Each structure stands twice: as structure tokens, then as C-alpha cells.
């Protein structure tokens, strides 16, 4: 920061301003930092608040696209291999299978192996018996199955790692809760971006040489703000549900034309079943619905019958920003999963770039292409290094990994290190480390910011206990004063409840009755004044 200008607005100066703290934005931040460039990353909410947080956490082998989009499939294969090498701490190489069950298209299944071969994707045919030996939860109505190299990836670990590494390399900065509201353009170049801190309402001016728009689903809005009308996006909302325990050993994909509820991905100690795909035209109030959950489950049960009696702890939604080509089909699933870089030169801007589309699996490649363009514009001749440089896994970024905190705690066996989150066994020391070391996140760490950077609130109790305990701990650490902590806690549990509500049956029901007794009956959070909406970070957390 370079101090306030005469009007009292905070001023920052950077070489590259990146808008959007998802995997792509943070990927560009690290890509450029590895070329020696100083960046400033902003997000209107916090890291992975959009699609980067609202997905399966699936590192595609490419099998999913082999039959429909050979290029994307091949990219998935190449990029998947790179990430497995450079970010092994973020990836569970659990493998995956594609399985067709009675009623699925026999011809589609029969052509799968050829399509994989054409895209260069490893794929091994399995007998139904072999498939069920690999995945005992699989339906006994399987008639065709293939093993592929799918893996599970923790997008939070990736994002946190990207920011952490960039900060370390070039003193790059991340500002959460900072929304771009105006672009100052001089002679066809953006010279500064005026932003607003959504928490304090304060203005922030960022002087910059280059601007990267990586705002995901919001990229079209940001481009328009900069006067560019060339970015046309299609919004497809996807909903997923999370089980209380891990169901399968690896990824299970339905071997058929992609549809609802046909991918089950392990997320460490849980499993994620999804997705739906529904076109929407507004980005406000994205939340999962009972209808979506019903659809996912109905389809999923055909593939994994045990899902019928599985305890689900939450649903969540993300919005896929898909490129809308002229005359394109409006079906979100059929739209290209490729990505595109807009240099906006035909829009009269020489230092603005927008990248849209793509996938979690190919985020690094998108960042590389963007980095190449921005570096060239800066006159920086350094090549991209992300394909070969390992992503460091520092102390403060490791807490998103399921099962890490309890192992760490158990190994240390320090009885004075109280467990704050019982479901995921996150100790006090983890929260303290996140508060102390977390680069940039915020000078003012909130319950929600800590939850984003750890497993807090993601277990079966969905914040029933840990919300109160972490809040109390933050009061103990003088981070919260007055009523602020209680208000944040109300926001947090209300946000979790949006996701819990559509899966509220069976064993999750008594859990939430207990939560209600605690939060409303005991703490009176329901009587706490309205509010919190301005702190709404959206469905930003992938459990």
C-alpha cells in the first residue's frame, strides 16, 4: 500500500491487478510471480467463492469428455499429469472408473474405449466383477466398465498454495472483500481501478500496468465495467451433495451421455455426488434446492444403490461460466468446456485481458496462456514455470486437507491444545496458525475466513459446535469485540443451513434439531438483529 491519496482513498500500486480469487485468478498470480512479476489479487468476497469452490474437486482423466470434446479431453490428460507431479499434496490419486448400468446406452459404452484412445487417455476395460471388486458400492447391474486415471483434487489447497507462493516470490498481495467498481482509462489503457471494500465501505484505488479479469461467472460484468462488450457467458448452475462418510475408493462416473448425478468423487473423508446443470440468468442467491437434490439422488442411486441410505450432510451449488459462441446450443452441458482468452484490443484497450470458461483441471494451462500474454505486454521475457515448479505446501495452507488436522493433533499429543472442531478435529493451534500466517487474507480474520482455510464447519455437525467454539476463541484472541462475533456466527450458520436444508432427512435431521436448540434456544442467534448479508461470501466452501 502506498498510503491514502488526498481524498482519503487507500492507494495500492502493482504491476498486474488480477480480479477474481478462484483457481484461475490465483493461478495467474502464481504464474506471473514465477516470472518475477508483482501482482495484486482482489476478490469481491474471498478465495474460491464461485465455481472454484462449488465443484466436485475432480481432477478429470479426460474420460468425461472423450466422447464429446476430444480437445478438452486431451487437455485434461496433459494438465492432470502435470498437476499430479507439481502439486501432489493437493491430489488424491484414487483412480476412477466409468460404469454403465442396465438401461444405459450400450453403443455409447461400446465406443468409449476408442474415444479415449483417440484423445490419448489411458483406459482399461473391466469385467463387471472386476469393477465391483474395485468399487464394492457399485450397482450389480453394471454391464460395462473402464478404469481411468481420475483423481480427487482439493481446490482450496491449490488456491491457498497459489496465493501463498506468489506472496513469497514477489511480495504480491491479496485483498479479499474488494470489489472493482470503476476503471480509469487513459489513451486506451487502464491506469487505475477504483474498488470498494465491501466490509468497511472504504474506497481503494489500485494503480496498475496490466489488468487480468479472472472473475469467473462474474467476468462478463467486469468486462462490461471496463467497457468491453465482447464477453458473452452462459450461466449453468450445478448442485452437488456431500455424504457424511467416504462412499467409494475412487471416482465413479456413469458411462453415458453426461447427465445429472452421474459422478461420485471422494473428498478425503467424504464423498461428493453431482451434479445438476440448469441454465440461469442471474448470479444472485445461488442456493441448492430440494428438487435438484432429488434429481441427483435419483440418478446416483442407479449407479450406487447404497446412496439411498447414505447420510448426506449438505448440498452446495456453483455456477459454471460457459462461453456462449454465436448460435451455440443453450444446453449448459453441451457448451464447450474449453477456455478463451480475450485480449480486448478490438475493444480499444491495450492492457486488459479476460479469461473465461475452462475447467479446474485445466486451470494451470489457462493461467499459462494468460501469463504469456501479460508478460509479453510487460516486456517480461521469462517463460512460464508452473509446469515444472512444485507448488509449495506451507504450514498455513495445509489445513484444508481432510484428516490432516486430527493426525497432526494426535501426533503432537499436546493435551493443552484444545480441539475446537470435534467432527474434523481441528485444534486451537491450527486456528492460531491460520490467523498468524495467512498471507493477506484479511487483517481481520473472521470465522468464515478461518473456515475457508480449514475443515471447520465441514463435518457432520455443520458448525453446530465449532461455530461457537471458534468464535469464542476469536474473542479470547481479541480478534472479535462486542457483538461482532455473534453476528458473524449467525451469518456463518445461516449460510451453512442454506446447504443443509435440502438434505434434511434421516440422520441429518436430529443433527439440525440439536443445532437449532443450540443456536436459537441457547444462544438466541435468531433474535440477533438482521444483517450479515453484506458479509455474504456465497457458497464458498467445498467440504
Amino acid at each position, binding site marked *: 500500500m502506498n498510503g491514502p491519496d488526498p481524498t482519503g482513498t487507500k492507494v495500492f500500486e502493482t504491476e498486474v491487478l488480477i480480479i477474481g480469487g478462484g483457481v484461475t485468478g490465483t493461478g495467474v498470480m502464481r504464474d506471473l510471480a514465477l516470472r518475477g512479476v508483482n501482482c495484486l489479487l482482489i476478490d469481491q468476497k474471498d478465495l474460491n467463492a464461485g465455481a472454484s469452490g462449488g465443484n466436485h474437486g475432480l481432477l478429470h482423466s479426460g474420460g468425461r469428455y472423450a466422447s464429446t470434446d476430444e480437445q478438452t479431453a486431451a487437455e485434461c490428460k496433459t494438465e492432470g499429469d502435470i498437476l499430479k507431479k507439481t502439486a501432489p499434496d493437493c491430489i488424491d490419486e484414487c483412480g476412477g472408473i466409468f460404469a454403465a448400468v442396465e438401461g444405459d446406452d450400450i453403443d455409447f459404452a461400446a465406443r468409449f474405449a476408442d474415444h479415449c484412445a483417440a484423445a490419448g487417455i489411458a483406459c482399461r476395460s473391466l469385467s463387471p466383477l472386476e469393477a465391483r471388486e474395485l468399487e464394492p458400492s457399485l450397482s450389480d447391474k453394471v454391464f460395462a466398465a473402464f478404469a481411468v486415471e481420475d483423481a480427487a483434487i482439493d481446490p482450496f489447497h491449490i488456491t491457498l498454495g497459489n496465493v501463498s507462493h506468489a506472496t513469497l516470490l514477489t511480495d504480491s498481495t491479496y485483498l479479499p472483500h474488494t470489489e472493482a467498481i470503476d476503471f480509469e482509462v487513459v489513451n486506451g489503457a487502464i491506469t487505475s481501478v477504483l474498488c470498494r471494500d465491501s466490509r468497511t465501505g472504504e474506497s481503494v484505488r489500485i494503480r496498475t500496468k496490466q489488468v487480468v479479469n479472472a472473475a469467473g461467472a462474474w467476468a462478463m460484468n467486469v468486462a462490461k465495467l471496463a467497457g468491453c462488450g465482447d464477453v458473452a457467458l452462459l450461466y449453468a448452475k450445478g448442485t452437488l451433495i456431500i455424504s457424511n462418510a467416504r462412499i467409494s475408493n475412487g471416482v465413479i462416473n456413469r458411462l453415458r451421455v453426461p447427465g445429472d448425478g452421474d459422478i461420485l468423487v471422494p473428498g478425503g*473423508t467424504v464423498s461428493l455426488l453431482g451434479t445438476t446443470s440448469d441454465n440461469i440468468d442471474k448470479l444472485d442467491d445461488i442456493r441448492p434446492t430440494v428438487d435438484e437434490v432429488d434429481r441427483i439422488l435419483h440418478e446416483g442411486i442407479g449407479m450406487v444403490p447404497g446412496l439411498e441410505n447414505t447420510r448426506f450432510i449438505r448440498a452446495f451449488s456453483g455456477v459454471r461460466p460457459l462461453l456462449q459462441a454465436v448460435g451455440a446450443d443453450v444446453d449448459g452441458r453441451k457448451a464447450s468446456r474449453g477456455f478463451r482468452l480475450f485480449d480486448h484490443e478490438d475493444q480499444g484497450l491495450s492492457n486488459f485481458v479476460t479469461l473465461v470458461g475452462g475447467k479446474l483441471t485445466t486451470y494451470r494451462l489457462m493461467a499459462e496462456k494468460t501469463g504469456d500474454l501479460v508478460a509479453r505486454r510487460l516486456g517480461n521475457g521469462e517463460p512460464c514455470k508452473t509446469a515444472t515448479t512444485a507448488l509449495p505446501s506451507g504450514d498455513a495452507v495445509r489445513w484444508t486437507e481432510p*484428516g490432516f488436522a*486430527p493426525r497432526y493433533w494426535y501426533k503432537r*499429543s499436546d*493435551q493443552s491444545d484444545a480441539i475446537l472442531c470435534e467432527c474434523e478435529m481441528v485444534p486451537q493451534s491450527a486456528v492460531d496458525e491460520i490467523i498468524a500466517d495467512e498471507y493477506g487474507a484479511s487483517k481481520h480474520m473472521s470465522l468464515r475466513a478461518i473456515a475457508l482455510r480449514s475443515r471447520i464447519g465441514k463435518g457432520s455437525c455443520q458448525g453446530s459446535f465449532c461455530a461457537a467454539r471458534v468464535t469464542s476463541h476469536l474473542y479470547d484472541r481479541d480478534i472479535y469485540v462486542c457483538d461482532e462475533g455473534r453476528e458473524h456466527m449467525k451469518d456463518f450458520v445461516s449460510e451453512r443451513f442454506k446447504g443443509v436444508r435440502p438434505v434434511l432427512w434421516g440422520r441429518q435431521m436430529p443433527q439440525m434439531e440439536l443445532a437449532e436448540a443450540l443456536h436459537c434456544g441457547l444462544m438466541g442467534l435468531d433474535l440477533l438483529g438482521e444483517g450479515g448479508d453484506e458479509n455474504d461470501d456465497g457458497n464458498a466452501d467445498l467440504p
Partner: protein
Amino acid sequence: MHDIIAPTIDFQAKARDLLPDNASYDSCLSCGLCSSGCPASGFDGMDPRRFLRMAMLGMNEELSNTPWIWTCTLCQRCTYVCPMSIDVSVLVGYARGNWPKDKKPQGIVRSCEAQMRFPSTSAMGVMPEDFVEIIEDAVEELHEEDDRFETLEAPMDKQGAYFFINQNSREPATEPEELAPLWKVFDYVGADWTYASKGWAAENFCMFTGDDEAWEEMVKQRVNAVNELGCKVWVNTECGHSFYTLWKGVERFGLQADFEAGNLISYYAHWIREGKLPVNSDWNTQGLKFTVQDPCQLVRKSIGDPVADDLRYVATKLVGAENFIDMQPCRSANYCCGGGGGFLQAGMNEQRLAYGKRKFDQIEVTQADYVLTPCHNCHSQITDLCDHFEGEYRVIHFWTLICLSLGILGKNERRYLGPDLAEIGLSKDAP
């Protein structure tokens, strides 16, 4: 982190196998009621909720090797208070069985081995012929000492007797003078009963080693002994886990038992109600205060509150309602004293006493002079707690007080009574 000594168990999968669908680990609310009421919470960084959560988080290696499983007494208080009725003790027991024999607490292992050695099934190694001789000697001694009992019998292997009475090894092995009060009670009510030379022992440490086969073998031998004699009712004497091990064992291993499993406390209550045991509290002129320790194995784990009611009925009849003070919590919600699960034999004295501090404090609050408990392990542990934490109370069996009240307690049958009761009910010319 502890040394790797045991093969790794997949606890989540085992929980699915061994627990009912609606009360398996997947139903946990993380509420912690289990842990807050568990005296083993905190040892080795563990508690019941942590055990379950670690299972859900896949920490199988840690759980397979934690020595905490020997600190948990399998008392099932966690299950009792769990809103979802999840039984943590099932997998703790399974994990015990998974430890290599030479790494398990050797005291428990040796007790089980002793049981396996002779058809007595006695953990103290009392052989059938020794048992028969000890009983004969004790009967003879009683005949000589008190002419009121010169015709009293302690039948052995009596075919077709109504009651089959088991016997904790402690009395025949180390305190034979404690045998007679129980016989006097049977004599008083005119019970048709018998001991057996085989399968007579009450205790079963094999169950605590987690070795299911050994547990089954012990119960089989005992069940066969009762079946062979054709008795109608098998009665455990004042030993908590002896009831559980047989009653549960018959169900668990699908054994053919041609008899009913009864417990002595309920028979005491029954005989008092019927007027066959006309006990009263007239002797308690000093207003001595009494409390009761509910044995987890008999109350919470087996029969539940009905036997807790019987315990209190008998106790208040014996000492006077105004002199009876319950511990809180009690009955099925009672805390384990720390003598269960083989803890007394496990050689982990420091942990055992720390575990028992909660029980000691509960007793102290009642300001009782005596703790009545129909369980040998409770008896030993609560006595140990008194010595260690410097309490003032004493621990006694029910049979002692029943005989005292009836005026038939011999002078040498008072080892657990204090000076305040040493002379009460002794006739001037009694031995």
C-alpha cells in the same frame, strides 16, 4: 503417537458390520454427551467421541494402537447417554481382541489363561477338587462355630436343584469366611440350591481380553454345567460382570441354555417382599449413612433400572430410608468406578485411580459411612480409592448386612465392617 503393535482395523467398516444401521458411527451428532460423562475421557488424548470421530476420519492405525482401549472399562455409559444410542464399546472390545496377546495387559491375559486351565473356569486357578474341599471345610467350620446352623448344607452338584449358584473365586481362594453369610440367607429362605464342581466360577476375564472365542468357551462350560444339573435358574452372586458375561454370552454366541439367568439382588428383594427375609433397620441406632454403587455390568449393561430399583429397595429396608443417600448420577446413568473391564488386573494403577477419582468424589458428597455394592470389582476398586484418596468410608457386601440385620452374622464374618458395627447383633454366647 504410539508404537505400532497391532494390525490395522478398518473401524468404519467394522462399525457398519457390528452396529445396527440406525446407531452406527454414521449417526453421530458430535454432541459429546458420551465424552462428558466418561471417566476415561482425557487419557491418552482420547475420549469416546474422539474414538468415533477418528474412525470416521479414517485414523485406523492410530485407533488400532491406542492404549486407551484398556482405560475404557467398556461400561457403556456413553451408549446410555448417546441420543443416537451408538455403542462405542463394541469396537473398543474388538480393538482389544486385535492386540497381540503378548502386548495386552498381562494381568488380564493371565486371569483368562487361569480360567481356561481347569473346568472350574476360575480366574484364580481354584481347581474343582479344591473348591469342593474348601466348601466342605467351610461348612464344617460353620457347623462347629454356630449351633444355629449345624444342619446347614452347601449342596454340591445336586441334580435338579432349583437354583444353580455361581461363586466368585475370591471367597474360596482368599476369604472363605465370607462364604457362609450367603448360605445363611439361602438357608433362611429355604432355597433349593446347589453349587457345581465344574463351571462354578463367576468371573470372566476372557471377555475383557477381547478374545471372543475364549469368552464363548467360558460361557459354554458354565452353561453346560447348569444344563447338566437340570437347574431352573442360574443365579449370579454379588458379582456384576458374572451376570453380564453369561447373559450376554448366551445371546451373542447363540448358546442353548435350558435355564433362566437370575440375579441375586432381585431375589433378595423378592424374598424381602414375600416376608421370607424379614430384614429391618432397627440395628442402625447410630444413624449410619449408606450409599449404593450400581454395578455397570448388572444395571446399565444388563437388566437396567428394574434391578437398580431392587438394589434401593433392599438397601433402604436394610439401613432405613432416612439413612440411604444416592450418588448422583446413579442407576443406569451411574459412573463406572474404574474396577471394570479388567482394569483392576491390567497393571495400570495410576490411570485406574485417576479414573476412579470421579467415583470417589461422588461418594464423598454423600458423606456415607458405607458403600454397598453387589460386585467384587466395584468392591475392590472403591476400597482402593478410599485408601488412595484417604476417604473414611467402608465397602460391604449385601449379604453381610442382611445377616447382620437378621442377627445371624458370625463374629468372623465381619472383616469389612468398621468398629461401629463390629459387635452389633452378636449374641452374648455367640462364637
